[in-house]
Structures are given as structure tokens and as C-alpha cells.
């Protein structure tokens, strides 16, 4: 019966989202604080009902961009469009958005019910309509029994639910989340992550979600925008970002444990393209080079889970020296060295024990490795 109720309320909630256009466009936006430029000619087009995650290291301007979209921050140049309307000069309340903050930002002196209904009361909505919307949102988030409590009487997870509920009652077409789960412990985070994903599937609203947790990004997003140094480095599906990072920054920022990088040279011989790592020659025939025929110094990147080891390693295997093993539950991260001394890690099943000093046959399959230009920010070749 409660499932039926949830269904009904979700239909009521999603009404506006399917009615209105609520795509978001950020056009050449520039924002600076004094002389400190935070965003530089940033453009981002978000389709209706899309779930976009803004991912990046601390201080890269994720919150700044979100505040600009919400209207809490004026842009120095450029435009913000929401639902086909230029809202650059409009107040937050007129943009058809709702926002969830990292620190919950619940009004401490108001009960949960008052918190959730504040925006509606400000807008002068009739009391019975407010009542209905709050009840619907509370059912959806399973916080009905908390409605008369004060925020100080709630746990962290409950507070975040209330904060999401406060956004939900606004029945907006666009939801903005600024690191909503980063104050919660790992288990609760996983739980609410699933709930947010479910919410998105129900409401079909556009969602823009800021995080620096790559698991959240990979699990939630339709597309991820990886940001660094005032610009978006890559905007793509989680699959593409994970498989084909456009540069070493994206490659190292996304994925855990981190991708291995080994400097060497791309060479072309009788057997096709190879990557030489000291004396070692790794066949890379078939690698989709952006500029075919390229040779010279490069960096090979491969994720620990993509390195083949043991019996799977195949004919191209070479023997690596095991230095250390980190058990991680289901699998073990084994740190190895190539014959030429380059260090890398391999993810293996936790079955047979591997001890330091062992040799482990490994290979780098061409289908999953990436090649980058030299240097810490080298672009994908």
C-alpha cells in the first residue's frame, strides 16, 4: 500500500518536470573573485532529465559553477539559460531550481515541516496545497514521522533527507546538489546515493550534482564533467571517462586504486607499433592513436584492474618482481616492478597468496591501456 502511495506521489511530483523544458546551458561563463579567476569561458550544455556530475579536486570551482547556475552568484561574463530562458539576471527563486547543500543548511529554529514548507509559504501557496506537497515528499523520503522534530533532533542522514525534501517540495525542473553526502559516513552515503538515483529515475528532472567522490560520480551520472584549473577537462559518460580519459589528470583522478603511469617510447617496427619500457617491448598494435604514425616519448597508463596476471597473462607476458601486497577484501593490490624498474600495481583475486619477492607474469592488453603525452598533464595520444 505504501508503494502505491509512493507511486502516486511521485507522479504528482514529476508533473512539472515532464511539463516544462528544463535543460540547462552555461554559455561562456566567467567568474572571478577580485583578480582570482575561478571559471574561464566555461560552457556546458545539459539536456532535460540528464544527471550531470561535476567532479574535480577541492577548490576547482565546482561550487562556484553551481552557485552561478542557481543565481546565488553573479557571473562576470557569459549567460545562464534554463528551460530555454535566459536567466542570467534572475533571482534564484525565479529560475525554477531547487538546491541541496553540503551542510544541510536546515533552519535550526524551524521544525522539519516548517523547514520543508518555508519556500512554499514565502511564495504564498495555499495551506492545503503546502500540506499535500510536504506529505508527499515526506512519504517519498520516509521522513513522515520526523515532521514535527527540530533539525537538532535528527541524525546526519535524516537531516540530509530533510534537506532533499525541502528541495523536492519546490517541484522544480532542475535540482542542484552541492556535495550533499560528503558529511555522512560511508555506509549512509551508499544508501542515500541509491536513493538519489531512484529519485532521479522517478522525477526525470534535470540534476546537477557536485562531488569529489568518484564512486558517486561513476554510479550516479549520465555524464560526468571533470573540472580542474578553471575549465572542464572532459565531459563524457562514466564509461568513456573511465576507459578513455582525455589526459593524465582525468586518468589519475578517476578510478580507485589509481591508474599506473610508466614513461617510455612509442616505436614502430616490423611487427607494428610497440611501447618500449627499458628493454621491454609491449605490443600496442591496434591502439587508436589520434594522430596515426606517431612515435617518440610517451607515458603508458593502465588501471590495476586491467593488468592481466598469472595464467591469464597470455603470450605477451613478462615477469614482474613483486614488492608488496595490499589485501583489500575481495581482491589484493599487488605492487610490482618491471625489469627496467618502473613501479606499477595489479589487482588480483585474493585467492593464491602472493608474497614479496615472488615473480608474477603480467601483460598490458592493448585494449584497455591509454597512452599520453609526456608530462604530468599530458594529453591522450
Amino acid at each position, binding site marked *: 500500500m505504501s508503494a502505491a502511495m509512493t507511486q502516486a506521489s511521485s507522479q504528482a511530483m514529476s508533473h512539472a518536470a515532464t511539463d516544462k523544458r528544463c535543460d540547462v546551458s552555461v554559455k561562456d561563463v566567467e567568474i572571478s573573485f577580485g583578480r582570482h579567476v575561478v571559471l574561464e569561458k566555461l560552457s556546458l550544455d545539459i539536456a532535460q532529465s540528464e544527471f550531470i556530475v561535476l567532479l574535480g579536486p577541492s577548490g576547482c570551482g565546482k561550487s562556484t559553477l553551481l*552557485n552561478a547556475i*542557481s543565481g*546565488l552568484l553573479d557571473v562576470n561574463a557569459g549567460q545562464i539559460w534554463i528551460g530555454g530562458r535566459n536567466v542570467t539576471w534572475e*533571482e*534564484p*527563486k525565479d529560475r525554477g*531550481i*531547487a*538546491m541541496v*547543500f*553540503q*551542510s544541510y*543548511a*536546515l*533552519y*535550526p*529554529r*524551524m521544525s522539519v515541516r516548517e523547514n520543508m514548507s*518555508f*519556500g512554499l509559504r*514565502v*511564495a504564498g501557496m495555499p495551506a492545503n496545497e503546502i500540506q499535500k506537497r510536504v506529505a508527499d515528499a515526506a512519504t517519498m523520503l520516509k521522513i513522515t514521522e520526523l515532521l514535527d522534530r*527540530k*533539525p*537538532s*533532533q*535528527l541524525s546526519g542522514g535524516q537531516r540530509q533527507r530533510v534537506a532533499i525534501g*525541502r528541495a523536492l517540495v*519546490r517541484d522544480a525542473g532542475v535540482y542542484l546538489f552541492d556535495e550533499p553526502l560528503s558529511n555522512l559516513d560511508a555506509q549512509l552515503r551508499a544508501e542515500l546515493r541509491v536513493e538519489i538515483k531512484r529519485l532521479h529515475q522517478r522525477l526525470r528532472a534535470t540534476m546537477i550534482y557536485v562531488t569529489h567522490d568518484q564512486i558517486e560520480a561513476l554510479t550516479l551520472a549520465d555524464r560526468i564533467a571533470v573540472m580542474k584549473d578553471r575549465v572542464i577537462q572532459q565531459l563524457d559518460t562514466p564509461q568513456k571517462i573511465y576507459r578513455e580519459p582525455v589526459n593524465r589528470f582525468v586518468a589519475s583522478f578517476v578510478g580507485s586504486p589509481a591508474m599506473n603511469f610508466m614513461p617510455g617510447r612509442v616505436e614502430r617496427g616490423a611487427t607494428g607499433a610497440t611501447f618500449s619500457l627499458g628493454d621491454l617491448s609491449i605490443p600496442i598494435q591496434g591502439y587508436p592513436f589520434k594522430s596515426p604514425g606517431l612515435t617518440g616519448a610517451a607515458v603508458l597508463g593502465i588501471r590495476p584492474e586491467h593488468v592481466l596476471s598469472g595464467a591469464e597473462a597470455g603470450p605477451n607476458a613478462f615477469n614482474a618482481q613483486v614488492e608488496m601486497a595490499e589485501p583489500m577484501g575481495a581482491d589484493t593490490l599487488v605492487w610490482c616492478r618491471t625489469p627496467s624498474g618502473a613501479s606499477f600495481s595489479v589487482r588480483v583475486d585474493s585467492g593464491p597468496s602472493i608474497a614479496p619477492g615472488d615473480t608474477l607474469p603480467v601483460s598490458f592488453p592493448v585494449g584497455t591501456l591509454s597512452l599520453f603525452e609526456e608530462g604530468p598533464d599530458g594529453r591522450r595520444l
Partner: protein
Amino acid sequence: MVAMVEPTGPRPRPLTPARIGLYAFLFISALFFLVPLYVMIVTSLKTMPEIRLGNLLALPSAPSIEAWVKAWSSACTGLTCNGISVGFFNSVKILVPSVIVSIAVGSLTGYALSFWRVPVAGILFGALMTVAFVPYQIFIYPLVRIFASAGISNSLPAIVIIHTIFGLPTMTLLFRNYFASLPIELFKAARVDGAGFFRIFWSVMLPMATPMLIVAVILQVTGIWNDFILGLVFAGRENLPMTVQLNNIVNSTQGERTYNVDMAATLLTALVPLVVYFASGRWFVRGIAAGAVKG
């Protein structure tokens, strides 16, 4: 061998010389403030013949509140002899609107300066703080002239405006600093919710500022109640505050000095700040506890 004692429970606090010195100091300071109060209370309860005996610390042989009654209702303040009650009600008339208006204005400016990007907020705040350090006697003459030309000199509105102006720097500073310590996301959330300048102030910020409101009330009530010179200059003859009346009673030199009446009048005048301190203590602590943003 020293007997080893297994440490459990509260740590023992040996009575060191430093500790004895500290207690002695606290005790003497307490005496220093309490003895004059004691003398005033016992004197106010004595009759004049008993006072003339000169036994300052002795308890009254037959305590009487006659002097209190006289001080309240029939002591002479200059030419009229209606007691200090007139001054009391004048002070209340000045106090209530002044406290309300000054706190209202101060909290609003503090809020505006901390949350809204007023173009010249920095300069404004700096100016306000500088003015706070200028001795206010300097402003008196110009303000008298301004009020005279505005036609509101020597009136209740004049003294209320004066107290609001002179309370503004402290009140603004108090509230600005408090609001600046609140998470900015609360303000952002309220803006997304569509609330405007006054709505955010009234519905979100002010309810959270309860501890500051109590501090502000204590500061303003004691400050305004104890004021002498501003009341004398700006309030006008009909509204002279209690402090001025007290001065008139104590300094009117007709015949013998009635010490018991003077003491009673002084205590009556001091009553309001005293009550405020005693009553607010509990509220103060409660207000601070309730003000915790993250529970």
C-alpha cells in the same frame, strides 16, 4: 617507600599556596564590592538619630522602610517634592523605546553588513567603528543644534534617537559578528526558497540570534538606565531620567543631609540593572545553549 595509590576517580586537588592566594584574592575582591552595598542597605533601613551615632557597619536596631517610602514618593528633587518615582517612570519611558529601537536598528544593520553585499560595506563598517571610539561628548553640541533646528529638542523622541545613534556601533558590531559566524549556506538556502531581505532577517536569522538579543538587551538596558549626561541634555525638563533625579535628591542641600533617604534612593535607582543581571543570567545560558546551530 611511598605508598602507591592506584589512580581512580577524580584527581586529588592539593591545597597549594597558589590556590590559597587565589581564594584570598577572590574573597577580598568580593568584600571590596559587597561592603559598600551592605553599608548602603543597612543605612537605608536606619533612622536619622541612629545614623548620627556613626556606627557604619552596625545592623539597624529597629529596621524601618520609612526612608524607602520617602525616597520613592516625597523626597525633594529641586523645587518639587514628589520623590524619585517621577524619575523612575521617566527612565522607563526612555528605556523601553530606546532599547527596542536601538536593538532593532543595530541587528538590522549588522545583518545587512554580514549577508548582503552592500557596495561600501567595508567603509561603512569602518566608519561606524571609528565613531565608536570618539568620545561622545564631542557630538553633544552639534546634535543639540541639529535637534533644535529640527524642532524636536528636549523631548522623548530626541532622547530615543540619541540612544539609538550612540548604541548603533556596539549593536551593529555585536550582531554583525554573530551573523558572520552563521553558515552562509543558511542564507543561500533561504534565498533559493525565495525569501527576501526582511523575510530572511525575520524568519531565519533573528530566531537564531536569541543569545545575541539577550546580550544586547542587557547591554542596552544597563547602559541607557545608567546614562546621565544624555538624559540631562536631550530628554527635556519633563522627562529627566532617574539618574538625574537621584543627583538632585542627593545634592539638594536644604537642612540636614538625610543619608537614609539618599541611600534608599540610590538603591532604588540601581535596582533595574541589578534585576536585569539576576534575571538574565539563566536566560543568557539557555539562549546560548539553544543557539547551537549544529546539534
